């Protein structure tokens, strides 16, 4: 039996890794941070599996490990080798970005954790540690959206999309632990293919334009 304190530790580690994946400007290191973030996600699934005696969650953990810890970071690293190593300089600098991020995260934490009944339909999801876990999933989701909105680098955008998906994936463990494995595998496979197609397109666009800056993709904006 694994106690709630381990889950809390894992969740904090998950959050820190997510912030690192967003803020590190070196794309290779950011990818490694994403990989670690996904590893903690998979560990959280295992911890929940052990805590709630739900062995099917081990399968979730394995699926997340294969797709999010191994395949997606590998794809990212393969494509980063062909592309510029450093992120296209974002409009918002380090200090400001971290401040905005902290504010967003704190607001989301306070809001979702306090008004959990708005999003958690069952008493199980309202009790700790599921409550914090659900809150965390909304925070990661918001983090992913933040990246998608403010960052210009195509690789960073893929990382943001992965964060967004990981946030939803994390919410599944509290909201829908009874979801069949096939469905979970389906969701995870979709993310892998979407990430791969996006990276492939980024590679093609880099060949044509010589840049991974998505803000210059304005040929069609008239």
């Amino acid at each position, binding site marked *: 039996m694994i106690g709630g304190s381990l889950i809390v530790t894992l969740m904090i580690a998950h959050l820190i890794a997510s912030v690192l994946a967003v803020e590190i400007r070196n794309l290779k290191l950011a990818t490694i941070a994403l990989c670690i973030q996904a590893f903690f996600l998979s560990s959280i699934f295992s911890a929940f599996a052990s805590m709630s005696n739900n062995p099917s969650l081990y399968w979730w953990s394995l699926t997340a490990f294969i797709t999010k810890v191994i395949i997606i970071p590998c794809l990212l690293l393969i494509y980063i080798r062909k592309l510029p190593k450093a992120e296209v300089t974002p409009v918002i600098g380090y200090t400001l970005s971290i401040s905005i991020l902290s504010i967003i995260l704190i607001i989301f934490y306070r809001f979702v954790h306090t008004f959990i009944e708005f999003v958690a*339909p069952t008493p199980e999801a309202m009790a700790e540690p599921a409550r914090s876990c659900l809150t965390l999933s909304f925070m990661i989701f918001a983090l992913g959206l933040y990246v998608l909105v403010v960052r210009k680098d195509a690789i960073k955008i893929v990382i943001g999309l992965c964060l967004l998906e990981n946030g939803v994936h994390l919410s599944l463990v509290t909201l829908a632990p009874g979801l069949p494995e096939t469905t979970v595998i389906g969701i995870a496979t979709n993310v892998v293919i979407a990430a791969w197609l*996006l990276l492939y*397109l980024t590679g093609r666009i880099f060949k044509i334009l010589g840049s991974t800056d998505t803000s210059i993709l304005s040929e069609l904006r008239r």
Partner: protein
Amino acid sequence: MTSIEVVESNLAVLVFVIPTLFSLIIFAFGRFSRLLREGLAFLGLLVTFLISIAIYQKVLSGYVLSAWKMTIYVDGLSALMEIIGSLMGLLIVLYSPRYLKKRGLPEEITPKRLGLYYGLLLLFLGTMNWTCATNNIVMLFVSLEATTLATTFLITFYWGKRASEAGYKYLLLVTIGVTFALFGCVLVYSASLPHLSGHEALLFTSIGKVAGKIPTSIVLLACAFFIAGFGTKAGLIPFHAWLPDAHAEAPAPISALLSGIVIKVGAYALVRTITVFAPHYNAIVVFVAIIASASMLIGICLALVQDDLKRMLAYSSISQIAYVIEGIGLGTYLGIYGGLFHLLNHTIIKGLLFLTAGALLYMTGTRSIQELQKVPKKMPITLFCFFIGSLAISGMPPFNGFLSKLTLFLAIAQRGLLWAAVIAVLTSLLTLACFVRAAYRIFWSKPAAQLATNPHSKEVPFSMWLGMGVLALLCIVIGIYPKLVYPILDSATRCILKILGG
């Protein structure tokens, strides 16, 4: 009225397995010969079409087909989507071979790429039929995202700068949008769990029965996620940014597919999710009406200022899909009926218009209305088709668009949303202005003398105008004899209402 009975049937599974299998064969062997890609693609679509017809007949005799412990559930609405999907697919496969041979492309089109093209077309149809067949709310997300993944490389077929950009935008925006919808699906599933046993809470057919018991806050949050998510796929304003680019930059047959079928899959997902809750919450009906009214009005205004013919058609699609969603969002019989009728009509009309735009591009090499104006054309069939499409989409009698729009106006007014009905009528008039102006400028203005020797001014080849002709004929036939499509639309509408418990 006969009651609806659920029966087990393999047809419900075959309808998405067959095209997927064909697509795999084309991926593997399509590069070797024309027969193995175009021939097989045609055969696969034909078989799918026949299966859809078989399903249609079963549905009309009062059955709903199910398989795999109710996770596959094919009712009238699914049958409608499957028929129009495979019919459009067939016409597109007929149209494509000649069209793709066009001169002056950025990269040589190799047999390998053509194999990929036809394979993806079939794969899209397979995933789309899967979307329409699934009864599992989370699988709806999986299959819907799969349709997006399958169409991305169709949009980027030419691999130029603009096509790559359009494909990138499409994939990114729709994936983000649909992820929101996934959150909504999970919330609804989770909220139904206390009222249903584990497996059942995933099924739309069961969720419909407990929709009234789900907490209001969750319903509203989930519906907001659905509208943002599936609305992105359907191209509703303000989630439409991908749509004009993707429609304009894809090859014309793929534009017809996008506008005719792909955005309808988003509308279909909205039908399955939103209508479950619409009868219990008036706020959802009003919210959908506001978004839809804004989409139709802004969409057509943007269409009016376009010079690029395909972009104009794309913006008009935003405007027209809003009619479909507004009707469906009403949650009444007349509203859903009108919405589905317009969905069918819009597929036919917009398919027709995009294929005619393709024919013009094929012959003249330009999509700009201003330049098309200068080129002399002897294209009577294209002219005829464009003319019919323009009148039909503006809702002019005796074409099919008139009937569906009239039904929608009545349904909206009946529900008490007079302001929305006024906007819908106004949009229809603006559509007429937009299309008649375009048709006049393209076909009736006097070409400049110095270009009179342009060699590319004759009619397009038979295989290309055949599809256009069939669609134009359908516009007229359905307009004059709507009883042809009444049974399937009625059955689809009753199936939706049945899930609602009505």
